[in-house]
């Protein structure tokens, strides 16, 4: 796909023609970053709002869950293995990074496979992988649990904070104070889940959903496909990102997810508990459940003082509406996860400020 300026201008011309008030939500953190960076918000008419949704896995992790992870990480004999972007997320008393500087053995890995290798090399330690991420990441972790079982590894487990996207979208659509006219759906989550979950959502809520890629042209096309449907009074699930996403998703990934995990309740920052939005190990894989293995209790969610991440994540406010944004809270001294994660909405807005302070709608 070559980015022809002429084509982009034509797309934009079509989009700008729309004069109705419309709010589209981009669900994925990568979209949030790509939209901010492209400067698209400056080009779109004020009646067309792009809101950020709960699509950054780090940001939506509940405070209580982060606290529980840190409680486990500091226990003697534990090696905690995590993706890098969890390190700086503030818990109530510390972050993983602070815990590491105080002596906890916490390692950053590129893949959950690395955690398996660490477990094999350290038979006298308990290796816990911090499983965070949506449907894009969860199959990788499921395969690792399966491999650990085949290898008979006794010292490997997973702290599963995995979440699935569709139930959260359902919550967003049914919020009484939320008016979202259409969804820009996540490209790489959809590589796994395909179109079916969105078709169900569309059937129930009659709002168009378009699975969209990450180039500026993709996003403009996705926005245009949504507007066209809304104009015509239609609501369908469509794929803009056909280059990579198949309507059936990835069957091998769906199968391993289904084999290893079962739906469970999960807490989302800013939203609260959403039934069936988490992934817990099935009983056959229960030995890999770190919470069970180490008897970790659920921790209460203690909100971070002054941080409005929850409202940012549900599109109720834009980051600049938070009193701490850019003052007490910056990427170098972040207060909430939406500023810590480089794909969090606050970080995206900080780096690429939209034209006017805020267009509350």
């Amino acid at each position, binding site marked *: *796909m070559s980015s022809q300026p002429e084509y982009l201008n034509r797309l934009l011309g079509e989009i700008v023609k729309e004069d109705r008030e419309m709010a589209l939500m981009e669900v*994925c*953190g*990568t979209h949030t*970053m*790509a939209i901010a*960076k492209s400067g698209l918000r400056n080009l779109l008419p004020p009646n067309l709002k792009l809101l950020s949704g709960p*699509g*950054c*896995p*780090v940001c939506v992790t509940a405070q209580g869950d982060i606290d529980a992870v840190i409680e486990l990480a500091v226990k003697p004999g534990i090696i905690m293995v995590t*993706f*890098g*972007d*969890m390190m700086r997320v503030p818990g109530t008393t510390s972050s993983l990074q602070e815990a590491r500087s105080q002596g906890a053995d916490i390692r*950053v890995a*590129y*893949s*959950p*496979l*690395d955690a398996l290798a660490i477990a094999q090399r350290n038979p006298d330690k308990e290796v816990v992988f911090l499983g*965070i*991420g*949506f449907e*894009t*990441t969860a*199959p*990788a972790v499921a*395969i690792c649990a399966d491999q650990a079982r085949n290898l008979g590894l006794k010292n490997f487990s997973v702290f599963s904070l995995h979440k699935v996207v569709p139930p959260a979208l359902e919550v967003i659509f049914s919020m009484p104070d939320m008016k979202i006219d259409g969804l820009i759906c*996540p*490209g*790489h*989550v959809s*590589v*796994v889940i395909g179109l079916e979950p969105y078709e169900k959502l569309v059937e129930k809520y009659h709002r168009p959903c378009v699975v969209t890629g*990450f*180039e500026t042209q993709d996003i403009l096309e996705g926005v245009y496909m949504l507007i066209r449907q809304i104009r015509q009074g239609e609501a369908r699930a469509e794929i803009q990102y056909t*280059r*990579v*996403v*198949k309507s059936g998703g*990835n069957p*091998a*990934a769906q199968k*391993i997810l289904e084999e290893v995990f079962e739906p469970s309740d999960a807490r989302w920052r800013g939203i609260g508990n959403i039934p069936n939005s988490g992934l817990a190990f099935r009983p056959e894989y229960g030995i890999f459940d770190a919470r069970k293995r180490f008897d970790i209790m659920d921790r209460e969610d203690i909100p971070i003082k002054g941080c409005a991440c929850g409202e940012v994540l549900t599109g109720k406010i834009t980051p600049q509406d938070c009193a701490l944004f850019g003052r007490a809270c910056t*990427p170098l001294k972040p207060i909430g996860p939406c500023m810590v*994660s*480089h*794909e969090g909405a606050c*970080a995206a807005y900080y*780096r690429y400020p939209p034209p006017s302070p805020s267009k509350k709608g």
Partner: protein
Amino acid sequence: MCLGVPGKILEVKENSIAVVDVDGNQMEISIRLTPEVEPNQYVLIHAGFAMEIMDEEVAHETMRLIKELEESNEFATGIFEPSAG
């Protein structure tokens, strides 16, 4: 971040392991999610796993986009340190 990184399959080994080239770096990944993949095909890689087979042109565009996003963001984790999504 739910963005995959494109890589070219150089060699398919035993146990669903493949050697890939990602932007000039060689690494091993699991191809359990794309069992039918063959050498010289491009795949979208996330957290050490091939997620989907993609065509070459798409792979190059995706790599360009990733570099753009990363260069513009000093707080980003590198290509080899993908984040949770």
